[in-house]
């Protein structure tokens, strides 16, 4: 699975993207967020308040209960501010 980070999520995670082989226990976006939050200090900080986060699965906005498979591209970022 490819995970992308944008804006301050990229800064907090200190990387723009990573490849991850999905642990079998991860079924949804929420599971993945929980996994990344517990993985290390950076994850704990970045995923501390999930109400600040938005998620895209395969480049479409998704809810936290969206199911995941290993071939998905998931992105975490703050609410958008373009225009």
């Amino acid at each position: 699975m490819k995970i992308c980070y944008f804006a301050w999520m990229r800064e907090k995670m200190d990387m723009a993207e990573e490849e991850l082989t999905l642990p079998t226990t991860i079924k949804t976006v929420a599971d993945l967020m929980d996994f990344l939050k517990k993985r290390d200090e950076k994850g704990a900080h970045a995923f501390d308040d999930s109400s600040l986060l938005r998620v895209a699965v395969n480049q479409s906005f998704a809810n936290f209960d969206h199911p995941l498979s290993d071939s998905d591209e998931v992105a975490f970022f703050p609410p958008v501010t373009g225009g």
Partner: protein
Amino acid sequence: MKISVQHDDFDVSTESLRLTESNPAIGAVVSFVGHVRDTSHNQNLVDMTLEHYPGMTEKQLSEIAVEAQKRWHLEDLTIIHRVGALKPTEQIVLVITASSHRQDAFEAAQFLMDWLKTKAPFWKKETTKDGQSQWVEALDSDNDAANKWINPKT
């Protein structure tokens, strides 16, 4: 229909005349241009950097454009959004809608901007003269504006 994400600046006249010069059915062209505004109160903005999600950005902009064409009678439309570092007063975004009638052109342009503001994955970071930089926060008013258009008008 033209959709572009680019660092280069754009020219409103060139972009609108490209739509109108060969289409005598167009009577109304509405353009919206967003500019880098110095919102730092004491005018000490040095620059604004726009980051985006390549791939998803173009996908979202296309979906928004298709939705506008479903809801209004448009002859054509253009969306250009700049990314990278921009200075105060520089142009950020251009939306052009061309229609036979001005009401369609006005409403569609407003819709495109309202949805772009909440659905297209761009993020702005401001750098001020004191060397501080911070991510711009999303506005509730932008969500409210976008929600007005959830249901196509009946």
